[in-house]
């Protein structure tokens, strides 16, 4: 059995890799770097593009490995044209973000096949850097950043490897050199990151697909809309309260008000054409809750301020409007992360003196739907005596409905049973299980059927407070729907029917409210996760805090943040004490550097120089052309004691032997020590 067979194919491959000629090894390294650049794109590229890119890289690797010739241009050009046509057929355009990225990845792969001169190498590397940039359209998380750093280092190593002309250090050392270069660059990069003047993008119109695929509250609510959101862990926005944070059950983030119901879907009430826009009457009580919201891009115009914020709060860079229903929206879609300061009043009255004719549209119900619900409404209405002015006692009626939800065996679930045409009937009388959208929808239908103006409000409820950095994180899973009813002289009042069934949902958060799916054995894990004292929760909080500061400082370092940070920095370093301190640190660093420069590179030469300096004082400076032996001969004429002459003679002989003779390392250190002891004797 031969040596290689016994060691197995892996060792064989390693040996062949190590024995690879230099240019081949360099090319393979470049291919690995290109693969690292391209790999993150495979997640979103069409499958055929990913496959084409992989095939091209493999082809190139095979060419390199076997030492074959590169494909001729007449073969490459049609392939490239076909790829371009494929991109066009897939996206129906060659412009725009996704099509552009697909083109770039293909271009990079093909360029590897057409790499002949050194110039082409730079083209490949530069193209790789650009493709690396485009991957941030899709992900900008911390792991992405770490992978980016690794990719940069491998790219630099590949670039560096092509620069060697003679000896080439092993790959590990080249990687270390690149990592050192990267670290050397880090302080300057950080400085530029912090100090480079930021302008609020975009510089020109973004391609339409720049921020596709974001989820969030939409302006309609059909069965399943919210429950699908509830399973998304994506962050909607983060809030930092400047004052005391309101309690969890006051955290209602109001987004969209839905009033039109077609028996299945709730939609926004379109603004009546030509209707005079009345001033919204709001009266507030108590202290304002000041807070700062960092909102993730939604690609939509709706905001979700804390109820009740505004009117007329501002989002930097956006024109904010509000509707008659106190929805806040921007004129432009929110396509980037924005940060805005706001203050909200938890205790408020909205449109207390609204005219009855303006309330009529909050009473409309589709005809011929949900007969049992309508009948139930009639029953309830007759059971409750109307108020003095003949109006239904809305407060009482609402209590009736909520206590029905509480009393009957209603349950709260993300997987409600399927409902038929009369969805509310099915929910109230057969299924009796649902999510917030079912409860709020059914509640509004019942209230309207009893003559009480009512509407569905969607937004977010609650959020998770991170005790470490004090940020409240609101996720898509916190999406919620509740209801509002109009009470005479009180205005719109918030009613949360879900709270009647699952008060935990409102008081804590969603994960708590849902019964643990213990069937999968994750029950305990979830319990653990939601117990704020557990180590898992601590870990989660820590990660969330890190992620949040990542978002705040890296991804969302915008002009405002830059200004405030630099001002803060200026105030720290602005006083003379800090300035002197900084100057001292710099001087010390320079001094250390200078001393290191002054220190001779080799101790042997240093000793010799010291010796020569000593003799120069006696007028016996070494001539530039003098070797140690001729110098020694000249020094013999120096008037000095016999001891000194002996010391000088020994010193120079030993020096000559050390400098020009071959001595082992051990002997060297011993001789150096002797030289050191001899030096003062030569004074």
């Amino acid at each position: 059995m031969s040596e290689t067979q016994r060691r197995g194919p892996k060792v064989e491959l390693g040996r062949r890799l190590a024995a690879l000629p230099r240019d081949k090894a360099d090319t393979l390294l470049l291919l690995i770097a290109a693969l690292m650049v391209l790999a993150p794109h495979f997640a979103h590229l069409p499958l055929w593009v990913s496959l084409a890119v992989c095939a091209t890289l493999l082809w190139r690797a095979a060419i390199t490995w076997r030492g074959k010739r590169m494909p001729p241009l007449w073969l490459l050009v049609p392939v490239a044209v076909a790829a371009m046509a494929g991109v066009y057929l897939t996206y129906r355009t060659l412009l725009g973000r996704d099509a552009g990225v697909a083109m770039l990845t293909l271009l990079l792969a093909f360029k590897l096949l057409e790499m002949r001169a050194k110039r082409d190498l730079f083209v490949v590397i530069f193209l790789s850097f650009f493709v690396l940039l485009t991957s941030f359209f899709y992900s900008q998380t911390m792991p992405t950043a770490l992978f980016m750093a690794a990719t940069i280092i491998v790219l630099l190593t590949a670039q560096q490897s092509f620069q060697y002309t003679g000896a080439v250090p092993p790959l590990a050392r080249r990687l270390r050199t690149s990592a050192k270069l990267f670290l050397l660059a880090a302080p300057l990069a950080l400085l530029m990151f912090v100090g480079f003047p930021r302008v609020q993008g975009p510089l020109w119109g973004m391609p339409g697909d720049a921020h596709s695929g974001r989820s969030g509250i939409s302006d309609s609510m059909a069965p399943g809309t919210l429950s699908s959101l509830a399973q998304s862990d994506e962050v909607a926005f983060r809030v930092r309260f400047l004052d005391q944070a309101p309690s969890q059950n006051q955290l209602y983030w109001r987004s969209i008000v839905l009033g039109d119901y077609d028996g299945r879907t709730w939609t926004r009430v379109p603004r009546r054409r030509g209707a005079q826009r009345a001033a919204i009457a709001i009266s507030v009580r108590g202290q304002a809750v000041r807070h700062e919201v960092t909102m993730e891009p939604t690609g939509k115009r709706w905001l979700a301020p804390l109820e009740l914020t505004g009117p007329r709060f501002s989002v930097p860079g956006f024109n904010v409007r509000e509707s008659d229903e106190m929805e806040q929206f921007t004129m432009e879609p929110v396509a980037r992360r924005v940060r805005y300061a706001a203050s909200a009043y938890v205790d408020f009255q909205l449109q207390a003196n609204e005219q009855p004719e303006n309330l009529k549209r909050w009473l409309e119900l589709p005809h011929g739907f949900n007969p049992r619900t309508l009948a139930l409404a009639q029953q309830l209405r007759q059971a409750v005596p109307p108020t003095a002015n003949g109006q239904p006692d809305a407060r009482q009626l609402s209590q009736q409905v909520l206590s029905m939800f509480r009393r009957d065996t209603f349950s709260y679930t993300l997987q409600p049973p399927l409902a038929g045409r009369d969805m509310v009937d099915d929910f109230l009388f057969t299924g009796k299980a649902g999510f917030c959208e079912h409860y709020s929808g059914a509640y509004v239908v019942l209230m309207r059927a009893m003559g009480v103006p009512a509407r569905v409000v969607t937004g977010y409820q609650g959020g998770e407070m991170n005790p470490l950095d004090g940020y409240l994180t609101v996720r898509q899973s916190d999406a919620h729907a509740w209801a509002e009813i109009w009470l005479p002289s009180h205005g719109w009042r918030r009613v949360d029917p879900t709270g009647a069934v699952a008060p935990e949902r409102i008081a804590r958060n969603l994960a708590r409210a849902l019964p643990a799916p213990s069937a999968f054995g994750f029950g305990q894990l979830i319990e653990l996760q939601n117990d704020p004292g557990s180590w898992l929760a601590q870990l989660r909080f820590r990660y969330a805090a890190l992620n949040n500061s990542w978002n705040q400082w890296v991804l969302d370092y915008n002009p405002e943040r830059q200004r405030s940070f630099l001002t803060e920095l200026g105030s720290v370093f602005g006083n003379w004490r800090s300035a002197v301190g900084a100057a001292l640190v710099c001087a010390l660093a320079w001094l250390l550097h200078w001393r290191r420069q002054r220190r001779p590179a080799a101790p042997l030469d240093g000793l010799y120089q010291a010796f020569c300096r000593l003799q120069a004082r006696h007028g016996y400076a070494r001539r530039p052309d003098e070797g140690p032996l001729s110098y020694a001969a000249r020094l013999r004429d120096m008037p000095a004691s016999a001891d000194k002459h002996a010391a000088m003679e020994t010193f120079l002989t030993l020096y000559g032997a050390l400098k020009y003779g071959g001595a082992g390392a051990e002997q060297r250190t011993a001789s150096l020590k002797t030289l050191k002891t001899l030096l003062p004797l030569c004074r």
Partner: protein
Amino acid sequence: MNSGLQALYRKGRKVSNRWLFQLRDSEPGEVTLTSRRVFILPTRAGLSFTLLLLIMLIGALNYNLGLGFALTFFTGACAVADMFLTARNLALLKLAPGRAQPVFAGEEAQFELHLTNPTKLDRYAIWLGFQTQGEPRQVTDVAAGGASAVVLSLPTRERGWLAAPRIQLTTRFPLGLFKAWSYWQPELRVLVYPTPEAPAQPLPSRGAASEDGHGTVGLDNFAGIRSYQQGDPMRHLAWRQIARHDPALGGQLVTKHFEGGAVAELALDFADLPLQLDLELKLSRMTQWVLEAEQRALPYTFRLAQHAYGPALGDAHRAACLRALALFGREGGA
């Protein structure tokens, strides 16, 4: 107008060479490339890299990509670090002139140079060449604490001393985005002997020429036959004897041996050359004769103006003669 501009350019070039690049005259002994002597500029790739950074910056701005900014600034800072490392790859290198063997005009002069790296950094891909020859073509690595020798060759045309032209050291290591360079004028010269005349003229003979017109040593009387020695002229081979003992059959080459009364030595005297000959041609002929005499192991005397050597044979004699020929009438002729 055009010539005026050219003159201005030349003058500007001269001023820049002197003040900007600090081109100095030859420096004796070892020279350390202080960082003040190392110049650096981006290469073409470096300029394209700047363009790439600009595009990346615009992309990051337009799409408001935080990580895009980070990538742009990191790659930009890596380029700055590369600039630093490229300059450092050359700085503090020690240069010393090495040996330079004499050559004949028309041959390539070989200048040996020693590069010593006293620092703890390995130096890679250092290109050397004469400034006058454009981009350097010799390349070497110098390990930390190590040394390396490089031989640069330069075509020669004229006899005399040839000083090594200014040397340019260039490096683009590690990333190739910047080119650092430095100049060094070593105190190194090579002696260029005159070109040996071709076709070769027969050696001169003093007194009577031999029967075939070739002056040779002691050709007066035939004194017998001896075995062939290297350097014996072909025409003295004793063909009759050789024919009898066929060398292929184990026979030996034999030479006719002559003895003169007083052995007339071979004299190479510049003054004996025809007056109408061009000076350089005369020197070439003398050179050729010195070489031939050495090759044929014929002791010779040499006379050129105040120089008179010999009769002798051997490397030292040859070198002295050739040196005298090379420097005849040249400045610093000694």
